[in-house]
């Protein structure tokens, strides 16, 4: 066995999967998982754990996998994470646990994400219910939003005995896990619905179709509905646009709209919600959401281009997503930026004017700042443009909650370690606080919020 390299994971053939929405990666089987686990040298001071936002005992669960004790492995993970089948699929492991792995110095790191996924999938297939409810302590907590932050916070609080109700604005729980991340990366029924079910098994109630700030306010939850504390995990908000000419033309979509139509509203199946099946799509942006939008457009039948203003090294997306997108045939047009969207006489997109870019000095984020190359503009034909430029926070809660302060970016101000906001009894975390980030960082914030609320209510 080659200990320097990961046991390869089986995947759907790129040519085939480019035309369907089935999951790309098949994951490890028992034999492959055991072999991969045997590469772990069980470090005394495991750096991988430091790299994990929710501090899973990684060598601990891998040890159990090595021995074939998958149920024990699930228990070890369950102590720290309520959503392992999701994290095993969507975490940016290369910059977290796997990025710190000692094995990575001389060869490839242990495939921690794929092992986590294996354990979670195995326990689902074998009907293992990992965690147990806590003894009821008589205290009620409301959680706003059933996305990764809210589900994690609710799960942790339920384990401590709190009576938790999650209020979700959409018609299905999951947040970005259902509306944002596509089926081919994160199966909705098999994985997301199951992990939501596990949170419900802890006694958590989920009320969909309730918009906190509109249907009922935070103050009403605290003063009239008998909740002792509230956690806000309402997620990211309004999609950003570039402000260039032609951006409101027909055929220009935010990635949020395009993905929501396809993922939450299942436009790729025989559902009523329409989606544009374009011939040639330009996706603007280089993050995971841009990759998801591009790979979705490709599967709906379009020639798909990613336009990103920096170079490949700066792409914020997970390496695996970029790799998969390329394999499937997404074309990367790097160091270019749109300056105008060209429209036909009926205001439909007919092309994009791009300008070439070069990298200058590093900016505040440490990445080299892209600069336009004067006179390098050129036009590419396309019939749809998808803007994937991030989001700015949703005002629904902050504008209806007195005493809840927001910062200059309109994000809710909250302490990182406890989620405590400027309003008594109100905690917050995830994208609503940090702006658009990752699933696992939202989960970390959900855990911090649960800890903060537990401390607050224990001392009250």
């Amino acid at each position, binding site marked *: 066995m080659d200990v320097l390299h990961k046991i390869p994971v089986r995947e759907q053939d790129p040519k085939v999967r480019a035309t369907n929405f089935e999951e790309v990666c098949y994951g490890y089987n028992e034999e492959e998982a055991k072999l991969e686990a045997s590469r772990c040298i069980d470090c005394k001071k495991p750096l991988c754990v430091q790299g994990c936002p929710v501090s899973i005992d990684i060598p601990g669960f891998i040890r159990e996998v090595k021995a074939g004790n998958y149920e024990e492995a699930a228990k070890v993970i369950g102590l720290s994470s309520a959503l392992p089948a999701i994290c095993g699929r969507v975490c940016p492991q290369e910059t977290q646990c796997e990025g710190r792995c000692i094995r990575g110095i001389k060869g490839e790191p242990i495939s921690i994400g794929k092992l986590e996924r294996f354990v979670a999938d195995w326990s689902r297939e074998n009907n293992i219910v990992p965690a147990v409810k806590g003894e009821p302590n008589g205290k009620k907590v409301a959680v706003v939003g059933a996305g990764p932050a809210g589900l994690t916070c609710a799960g942790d609080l339920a384990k401590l005995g709190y009576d938790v109700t999650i209020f979700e604005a959409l*018609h299905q729980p999951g947040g970005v896990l259902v509306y944002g991340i596509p089926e081919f990366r994160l199966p909705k029924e098999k994985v997301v619905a199951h992990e939501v079910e596990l949170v419900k098994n802890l006694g958590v109630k989920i009320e969909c179709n309730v918009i906190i700030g*509109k249907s009922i306010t935070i103050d009403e939850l605290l003063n009239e509905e008998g909740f002792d504390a509230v956690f806000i995990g309402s997620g990211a908000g309004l999609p950003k646009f570039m402000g260039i000419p032609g951006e409101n033309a027909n055929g220009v979509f*935010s990635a*949020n709209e395009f993905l929501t139509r396809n993922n939450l509203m299942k436009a790729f199946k025989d559902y009523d919600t329409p989606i*544009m099946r374009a011939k040639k799509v330009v996706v603007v942006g280089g993050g995971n959401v841009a990759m998801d939008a591009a790979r979705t457009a490709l599967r709906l039948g379009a020639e798909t281009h990613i336009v990103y203003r920096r170079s490949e090294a700066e792409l914020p997306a997970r390496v695996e997503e970029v790799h998969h997108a390329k394999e499937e045939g997404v074309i990367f047009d790097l160091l270019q930026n749109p300056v105008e969207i060209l429209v036909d006489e009926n*205001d439909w997109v007919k092309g994009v004017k791009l300008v070439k870019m070069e990298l200058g000095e590093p900016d505040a984020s440490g990445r080299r700042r892209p600069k336009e190359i004067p006179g390098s503009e050129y036009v590419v034909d396309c019939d749809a443009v998808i803007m994937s430029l991030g989001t700015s926070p949703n005002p629904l809660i902050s504008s209806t909650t007195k005493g809840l302060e927001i910062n200059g970016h309109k994000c809710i101000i909250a302490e990182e370690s406890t989620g405590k906001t400027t309003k008594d009894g109100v905690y917050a975390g995830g994208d609503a606080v940090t702006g658009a980030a990752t699933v696992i960082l939202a989960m970390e914030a959900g855990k911090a919020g649960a800890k903060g609320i537990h401390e607050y209510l224990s001392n009250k």
Partner: protein
Amino acid sequence: MYKILEAEMLADKIYRMVVEAPFIARSCQPGEFLITKLDDKGERIPLTICDYDREKGTVTIIFQIVGASTERMSWLKAGDAFEDVVGPLGNPSDFIKEPIEELKKKHYCFVAGGVGAAPVYPQVKWFHDHGLECDVILGTRCKDTLIMEKELESVATNLYVCTDDGSYKIHGNVCVPLEDLVKNQGKKYDVVVAIGPMIMMKFVCLLTKELNIPTIVSMNPIMVDGTGMCGACRLQVGDEVKFACVDGPEFDGHLIDWSLAMKRMNTYKTEEGRAMLKLEEGATHHGGCGNCGGDK
């Protein structure tokens, strides 16, 4: 599930339903809207709230068949249920924040076109319930498509009904009585509130611009989530891009880029047409829509 307590056809393709939705009924205000979703496969349909009963926890909706999901909605009867109803969404009308004493000094004219009568009604009712006067113009294509006449009559100070084809009362679109009232009958309006199809709101705005009357319109663009997430409902308002769901739905009608807003309504015209075709043809559908792949 959200139970339907009453369901009736008001006119051709126009339906009225009373639905149990306690979270909306407890807090909704004039100007706000809600979203319904029929079943698993249904679209999220934004609809204005026509009336509400806080005690019973019910809301009244009125909708017109425009696509596959609204067609399927029209088949529902009392006792059936929507899988999802969510709201209230959007912002309440500006006037509810004004002191009543200030509003007493102002003359409002509400202009409703077609199913726009539904969202206008709770606003006029609010005026009536607060002891305020207002005029209402109710316009529609012909006598058979007229809705809400009695309801509006009971709450408006003066109601002027008009039909495009002259089959009932005043002959002409809503601009005809509006122009007549202001130019010939000495009416002075401080605010016009116009709600209806985009083309009707556009023409009311062109007229009120000329008459120099500030005008509020309620926009009903394409939407998915209705909470500010998708950006499908974006509109050019003056030199700003606004989202109808979180910034509206009511805007200064004189600042709206109407031609852009109307073109954006066509985004899914073909797809919607195909979906309707598939629905109408039922089991006899063999993929002629070019959409479902049944012909391949």
